[in-house]
């Protein structure tokens, strides 16, 4: 079984949503137990969805736990045994006190030691969590690289080089346009970082008459490691251009801020 293909099929997302049939879900559960990389992927999907839905909560719900706990039906395992008090007199009482004191001292020492151990343990856990994150990041990078490779190797993909224009002669970008899936992947590695408050906007152009149609922004340019952006492009594009626009993009391209431009080879 090709695990990468399985992961990128999108079935795991539907699995986490609960959008699969019971039979399909069982199958995914089975695969997940067998392949750690599938499990890791599912956990990442879950994390993203958990964050998203948490953001939709109208206020903090932490205070509700108290009233929920009051209403919990107690399970039999949690009921405490009944303690009957015992009364003794004389020296037994005193030796009892002495024993309690000793016990207290002992408990105190034990408590300190436990605390030390607990601190060590949590430090260790923090280190582990850090390590896990690093591994996860590395793995994610590898997966992304592979996905990118798959994109440009696709037979329906056409590569359009976009050359630097007056405002930035040294700039360069490529569009990998999958006409079948109407997706344009913009490789913007050789574009300079946009200045503050500005954003690159990608345009699909048709000639005669010259009509620009925005297909999207290269958002979070600085934060994007690989500088590859996928945008939807259902247009009959004859040329692609990228302009620098104020944040949020513009209705029409600012032509004196045209960074790169390239025409699509006629079929």
């Amino acid at each position: 079984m090709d695990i990468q293909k399985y992961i990128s099929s999108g079935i795991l997302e539907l699995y986490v949503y609960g959008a699969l049939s019971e039979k399909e879900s069982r199958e995914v559960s089975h695969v997940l137990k067998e392949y750690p990389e599938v499990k890791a992927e599912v956990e990442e999907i879950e994390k993203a969805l958990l964050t998203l839905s948490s953001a939709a909560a109208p206020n903090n719900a932490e205070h509700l736990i108290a009233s929920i706990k009051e209403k919990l039906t107690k399970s039999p395992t949690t009921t405490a045994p009944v303690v009957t008090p015992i009364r003794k007199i004389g020296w037994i009482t005193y030796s009892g006190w002495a024993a309690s004191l000793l016990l207290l001292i002992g408990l105190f020492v034990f408590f300190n030691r436990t605390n030390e151990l607990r601190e060590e343990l949590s430090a260790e856990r923090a280190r582990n969590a850090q390590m896990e994150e690093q591994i996860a990041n590395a793995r994610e990078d590898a997966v992304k690289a592979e996905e990118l490779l798959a994109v440009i190797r696709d037979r329906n993909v056409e590569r359009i080089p976009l050359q630097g224009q007056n405002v930035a002669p040294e700039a360069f970008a490529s569009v990998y346009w999958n006409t079948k899936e109407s997706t344009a992947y913009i490789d913007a590695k050789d574009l300079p970082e946009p200045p503050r408050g500005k954003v690159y906007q990608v345009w699909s152009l048709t000639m005669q008459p010259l009509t620009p149609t925005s297909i999207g922004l290269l958002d979070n340019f600085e934060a994007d490691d690989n500088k590859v952006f996928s945008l939807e492009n259902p247009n009959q594009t004859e040329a692609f251009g990228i302009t620098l626009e104020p944040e949020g993009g513009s209705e029409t391209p600012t032509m004196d801020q045209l960074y790169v431009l390239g025409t699509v080879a006629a079929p």
Partner: protein
Amino acid sequence: MQQDALILELQNGNERAFERIYQLYSESTYGIIYSIIRDQSIAEEVLQDVFLKIWDKASSYNSDKGRFFTWVLNIARNASIDKIRSKDFKNDQQNLKTDNFVDILEAKTNFSEAVDSIGLKKYIDALKPVCKKLIDYLFFKGYTQKETSEELDMPLGTVKTRNRVCIDKLRAMVIK
């Protein structure tokens, strides 16, 4: 504690495990419920019911069938849908809004340190409209793949692959 061990403890009726589960899932669950119900005090009520149900029915969760998160999600969505269909709800909630989770993020101010909803909102804005719809139907509303495909007039397979691309985007935004 490992997730599996925590769930096992919950199933054994351990209250501390329950508290931990509450910490882990309550905010997200609340978000789901609120996105369906759109009334804060009713949503709080349903949230409590959902967690009582999680406690009572914990033993019926089975990891062969799916993720614990999904199990919780289903309970939350079902309870919310039951609520909005109930008679008393219909009476005092005549005009249910038709908008989706994006508007909630828009309307709310930041309260949680763990989730920077304003920051997240900015990213959500960058998602394509079709992504917002897919995530709304499949995740928040619990539509099946088929229902989503009919609603959006999109082939069944495309729902799956498109949604994958959308979630990838989301992941790139939230996991940093």
